Every structure is written in C-alpha cells, then in structure tokens.
C-alpha cells in the first residue's frame, strides 16, 4: 500500500481527525498516549521510571581484547527443535523426573511449539552472518560464527544457555529468544555475566521494563501494537463490548495487557476474559459464553493456528463480530485455515512488510535465493538484530561492554524492517501497523492511514 510521507498532510489529518493523539514528549515512556497512562486521570505518580537512558557503570570496558582468536562468535538462542524426540535423540514420551516426594513430568521440551518461529529467526540470523563473512568478516580479517542453542521452553533452559554461551563458547553478544518467560530468564543471567542480548522476537512490553542495561529489543512491542489496536477498536470502529479470549500462557497473559488497560481507561473494560490451552481445538464452551454476552468484538492473543481455529468456530456459530488479534496470526498458516470469507479481521503488526524500500527488497531476494522462500517477520527481525550486533562489534572491537555501548548508541537504525527508533530502555519504538484482512490478504495501515479508513457510521 502506498503511503504519503507529507508532514503537512499528516498534521492536517491530525487536526481534522478529532482523535486524541499521543502526548509523545520526553516525560512519556513508551509513547503512551495521555489517555492510556496508568492512573492518568487521577493522580501524578510519585515516580516515573524509564525516562532516562539506562546506564552500565561496571568495570567491563577495561577488559582487554583477546589475542589470537580464529572466529568472532555470536550466540543464538531460539526454539528451533520442535519435539521431545528430536531433543532427546529418539525418546518420544514424557520423561519422569523423580524428585523424591513427587514425580515431575519432564514436559519442557513441549514448548517448542514456537519452533516454526524460531527456525525463521535462525534463518535470518544465519543470512546476516553469511553476508558479513562474504564481506570479509570481522574487520575483514576474522570470520563471524553463529553459536546456536536450542531454547527448551518450559524447561527454562535459556538461562543455562546464556551461561554456556558466555563462559564456554565465549561469544561476544547473544541474540534471542522468542518466548517471554525464557527471554526474561536469559536477560537476568546476561545482566549477571555482563553480556549484551539482542532480542528480536519477544513483544512482551515488560521485557525491557526491568532496568537491565544489557538488553536491546529490535522489534516494536505489544505496547505499541495494543495502543493502535485499541485506537482502532474503540475510537475508529466504536466498539463498546469487547471480549478477550486468549491462550493461557505468559504470552497471552502479558501481551494483551496494554490492550486490556487501554480498554478500561477508555471506559470499555472487557466484558469477559476467557482463555484456552495451547493446542486446544474445541473452543465451543468459551465462545458460547461470549456469544451470550453479545460482544461486538473479540480479541485473541495466541499462535496463528489456534487463532484461526477460534475464528472459524466463531463464524460457524454465527458470530460475525470484529476479530482482533496479535501479530502472530498475520501468517499464511492463518490465512490457509480461515479460508475465503473470514469476515472482519484486524491485528497489530510490528512493521510494514509491503512498503517500498530497496533495503528490504534486496533482503527479500537474498533470503529467497538462500532459503527458497520469502522471509516473514521473525526472519526479518532476526536478520536486523544480528546485523546490528555485527555493526556494533565492528565499531567497538571485542569487548562486551563496548559492544553494548555501541548497540545502545544506535538510537536509529535502517534495517530490512524499516527505520527503527530506539528509546531510553533500548527498545524499538517504531510505530506499529494495523494488518487488516482484505480480499484474502493482509493490508497494512499506519496510525495516520487508519484514521482515514471509512467507518460505516461515517455515511
């Protein structure tokens, strides 16, 4: 979709739109619109956090560079092994783990339900490494090497992975991971060890709200996507009775949080918030409840498959409300499952994959040539993340603290996912997009373009 970048047009749209646009000054964290501020209508908080850039005040910058290295290693943590069988080399059943009083099920490897996403992220990372090496490697002398660790989900192995990458593999920075809990675990270890982590896939708003100065997030998060979804749902589409139906895990719980708060602060709190287990296929009982509540919108947060199955069952039950969701449902898998007439569907999205951008076009072609398919969001953001790390290493040299300094100094970066802006906690605050399903494909709208979408009540 073509867009105008005219500032004057944008200002005109803002003036005539009648919408409350965000108070985006230096006293505002996360580009939070005034109306979505916590307690904003009632009280000025005693203290606001995250308004100043995080500092690292340790000794790390004084550590000398090593000599005689044969490769420059970058760590990668992601859910790339899908099943227990692959991980354990053939054992297909849950493994009973005896801890005296009770037997635990070794169910952690289950969590590679995100394997499809992790593999894409890995492909993007690999392509960035290969591109850097084709240009001569580190300072045109030493090849880069990606050290890959599997993220075994609920087994919470990401912390151990960071330990091994930092102390045994001696990587200079780490990229990963996707799952919110495992990403949190990884950054806590990284803080202790003092090694930079670039995350390109965890959109949980709280991920960067921990004051850890070693974390950079290279993807627009659910805070931005939820604000835009809320603007669209409540201001543009004038919905009033939205029900939430989300996956019962940390992703579903945390990522929908800002939409829930925005809805409440606009005066339209959820009329229900129900959940399902990952892997469920029958959602009838929950949807019956929502149907009986006469919701005019349903928002879901979960993976593409479950989101699509929920939508199909809604439509089969005669529920034709707006269906809102997360970026994880903006996939071909979702489109394949929902078929030709899925009704009104909108999702948040962290970038515009349809824009005209030679940088992105080149990447798409390179990726297709390397992997035989076009890149999706996890591959694209993974590529950008590793590319930023390499750029930082080239400038800083082989010192983790200095690499961290160079990464956080990149307050703007033109990657394949667009021109990214980073805030005081080193999180990508580039504008989110709306992905609206139109004629069997997702079309992408910026905030300004969303304002111009015609609503039925507009006449």
């Amino acid at each position: 979709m073509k867009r105008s970048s005219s500032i004057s047009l944008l200002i005109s749209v803002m003036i005539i739109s009648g919408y409350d646009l965000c108070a985006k000054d230096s006293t505002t964290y996360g580009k939070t619109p005034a109306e979505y501020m916590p307690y904003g209508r009632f009280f000025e908080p005693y203290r606001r956090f995250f308004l100043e850039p995080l500092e690292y005040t340790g000794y790390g910058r004084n550590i000398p560079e090593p000599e005689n290295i044969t490769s420059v290693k970058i760590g990668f943590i992601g859910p790339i092994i899908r099943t227990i069988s692959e991980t354990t080399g053939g054992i297909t059943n849950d493994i009973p783990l005896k801890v005296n009083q009770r037997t635990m099920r070794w169910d952690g490897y289950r969590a590679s339900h995100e394997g499809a996403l992790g593999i894409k992220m890995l492909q993007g990372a690999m392509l960035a490494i290969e591109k850097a090496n084709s240009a001569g490697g580190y300072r045109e002398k030493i090849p880069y090497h990606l050290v890959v660790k599997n993220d075994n989900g609920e087994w919470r192995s990401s912390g151990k992975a960071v330990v091994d990458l930092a102390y045994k593999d001696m990587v200079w920075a780490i990229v990963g991971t996707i799952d919110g809990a495992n990403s949190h675990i990884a950054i806590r270890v990284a803080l202790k060890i003092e090694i930079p982590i670039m995350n390109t896939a965890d959109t949980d708003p709280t991920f960067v709200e921990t004051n850890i100065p070693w974390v950079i997030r290279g993807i627009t998060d659910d805070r931005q996507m939820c604000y835009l979804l809320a603007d669209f749902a409540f201001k543009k589409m004038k919905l009033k009775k939205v029900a939430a139906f989300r996956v019962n895990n940390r992703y579903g719980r945390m990522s929908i949080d800002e939409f829930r708060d925005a809805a409440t602060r606009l005066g339209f709190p959820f009329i229900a918030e129900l959940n399902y287990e990952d892997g469920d296929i029958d959602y009838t009982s929950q949807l019956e409840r929502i149907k009986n509540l006469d919701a005019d919108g349903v928002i879901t947060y979960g993976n593409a498959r479950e989101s699509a199955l929920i939508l199909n069952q809604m439509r089969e039950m005669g529920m034709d409300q707006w269906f809102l969701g997360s970026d994880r449902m903006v996939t071909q898998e979702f489109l394949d499952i929902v078929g030709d007439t899925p009704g009104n569907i909108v999702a948040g999205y962290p970038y515009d994959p349809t824009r005209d951008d030679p940088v992105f076009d080149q990447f798409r072609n390179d990726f297709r040539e390397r992997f035989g398919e076009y890149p999706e969001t996890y591959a694209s953001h993974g590529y950008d993340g590793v590319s930023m790390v390499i750029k930082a290493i080239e400038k800083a040299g082989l010192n983790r603290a200095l690499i961290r300094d160079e990464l956080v100094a990149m307050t703007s970066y033109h990657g394949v996912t667009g021109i990214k802006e980073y805030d005081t906690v080193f999180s990508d605050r580039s504008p989110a997009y709306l992905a609206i399903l139109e004629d069997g494909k997702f079309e992408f709208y910026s905030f300004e373009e969303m304002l111009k979408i015609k609503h039925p009540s507009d006449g």
Partner: protein
Amino acid sequence: MKFINMGTFIMVVLIGSLFSIGRSQENQSSNVKLAGDPYVYTEWESFTVESTHGALINDHIFCLEGDENQLWIGTEGGLVLYEDGKWKSWTEENGLPWRVISGITKSPKTGDLWLAMLGYGIARFSAGRFDHFDQMNSGLLNDVVYGVATEGDNVWAATTAGISCFNTVTGLWDIYDEKNAPMEEVWSYNVDARDGKVYVAVWGGGILEWDVATRIWKDYVDPDREMEIDLYRDDGLIHIITTSASYIDHVLWASTYFGLSRYDGRNWRGYMEIDSGLPSDFINLAVGRSGTSCYVSTDKGLAVLVDYDTDTWVTYKRDSESDEIWTAHVMVGNNTIMTIPTNLTLPNHFVICSEFTGNDLWIGTGHGLARGSGRGYWDGLQKTQVK
C-alpha cells in the same frame, strides 16, 4: 591498580578518626542537621588479583559470606576463603563443580558450606569434599541458581525456575513454583532465612514470605501493579523486579532495581535516589544489619542507612571517574551534610555485595574486594560531641 601514597593514607585515617570524635559544621546544610554521628568507615584495605598476586583468583565478586573470623568469597572464577590474613581458593581443578559462584551460605548447625553456582546447580562443601546437586540428579528446579540460605535442617535455593528446598536430614526436596506458591513469575533471585521466616526475592514477582511453622506462603507485590511508575512512595513494595530480601529484627528489607523497601510488619517505607542517600535506584543487594540499619549495594556505590528513625545515611562512592579514592557522604534524606574522604581505592564502584566479619565491613565489586575497618564501631548514631 593505583594506590594512594602513604602520606595521603595517613591523612585520610586522621580525618576519619577526627570524625569519630566530632564533626565539622562547615559543610552542614542550613536546614537539615544530623541528629547524631554515624560511624563512617574511613580505613579500608583493597584487594584485587593484582594486589594479592593472584591469591584472590578473580576480581569479579558475586557474593560474600562471613562470620567473626572467616570470609568466604564467591567469584566469577572460583571460591575463595580469607581467614587470618591468608587466602585459600578452589576451582574446578580441585573439585569445585563450576567456577561461577553466585551465592554462599554456611549452615550454623553443621558448618557445611552451600554454594549456588550460576548455571550449574548447587554444591555442598563439607570436610574438603564437594557434593554436586543439579536439576538432573536432585529436586533442584533449575541449574541457574542465584542464592542459597539455610534454615534449620533445610537448604533453600533460589533458582530461575522457582524455589527448591532440600532437607539435609531426610534427603527430601520440596519444590515451589507457580503451581503451588503465589508466584506471578517464578524467577527467584535471592533467599534469606531467619527467625522462623524464609524470604525470597522473586524477580518479577515481588517478595515471597514462607512461615516455617505454618508452611504457608504469603506474597508482597507492588500495589500499583505498574512497571513504569511508583504511584505512592510508601504504599508497599516499590517494584516487583526484586533482587534481594533481608530479614532481621522482624523487619524486612527488600531491594529492587527501582529502589529499596522496608517493611516492619505494619508499615512500608520506600527509598529512592531522589529522596534518600541511595546513589542509585539500581540495587544489587540489601543486607540488613538491624531493623533500623541496612547496607545497600548499588551500581554507583554503597549506601548505608545508618539510622531509620532519623533517615541518616552514609554513602560511599567515587565522586567522579577520575577520583582515585572513594568518598563517604554523610546524609540526612538526600541532603548531604558533609563529605569525608576514605582510603578506599577500588577502581570501580559497581558494588555487588556486602558482608560483615565482626565489626568489619566487606564489599565485593565488579573489580575487586575491600574491607573497611570497624575499629571503634558503634550502631546507629552517637550523641554529637562537638556543637
């Protein structure tokens, strides 16, 4: 590493001693006055790998455990004992299961030393032998262990996937995570046990309190439930990103990356850089010395709340990157009353931990260890002798 010369050293000690018998009025704020004199550690010894000729085997100090005579030091490169001026160390070469020691506790009942090892479980060091417990051979919930504490026959381990408790007599493990404890998140970071209570700092989950007698958990979280603000100063825990808990005299001290909280069982008090002697809100560890005094390790120095009632602090830090010595700032609230030079020369004031051996104070930093002499130490405030 640079050390100040002997002349400067004598001068610093002299100034510190003078402060013990009286204080200068010259720097005092016109509006805020000291209610009495706090003890100020002015006489320090600094230790690094270089200055000890390798006896301190690693400069990155993660944890300290001390009593009257011994100091156990957990480093990024192994375990170290400092006793009677002598050093002894253990690495993987002489049996230590993993070199990165993130927590230490000594059982008062058995004398055994328990070690938390970052990424490799826990170990018992007893009679010269290390016994290794990890998530594959025990009830340890995760190999990433940040802290350990002993309580009776039990050893508590704060892991990144929850809390494990090992009964050293029965050999049984209890495990606590989101399934059987009030944990919004399970990422446990620090544990302290005393007087029938166990407190766990859960990173992202606030503070958990375990009552040993009733075996019931209770949780303390940030009442405003928002990450980006603190709504009221004293409404409860400042933030749910907690890093340590210290329980003494029936008072809980809880540190976060957003400030310090104190809870006496009835009232909360919050402390931040803007309203206290804290040089930074980023707190690695808080150690209560009493119900009215707490030692706070921050990324910009050590803050000591000397006297809760009068809000009197002494904060030790390097005032600028070019300063060779640390300066003690005597403060009431966030008003500096006076500054006193010390002879502490560690090159970086990223303080990770603190501990006591008798009256002496130890701090572990990102690059080195130091001991402040507690000769003539007094608790709280002494009556001002010079008016």
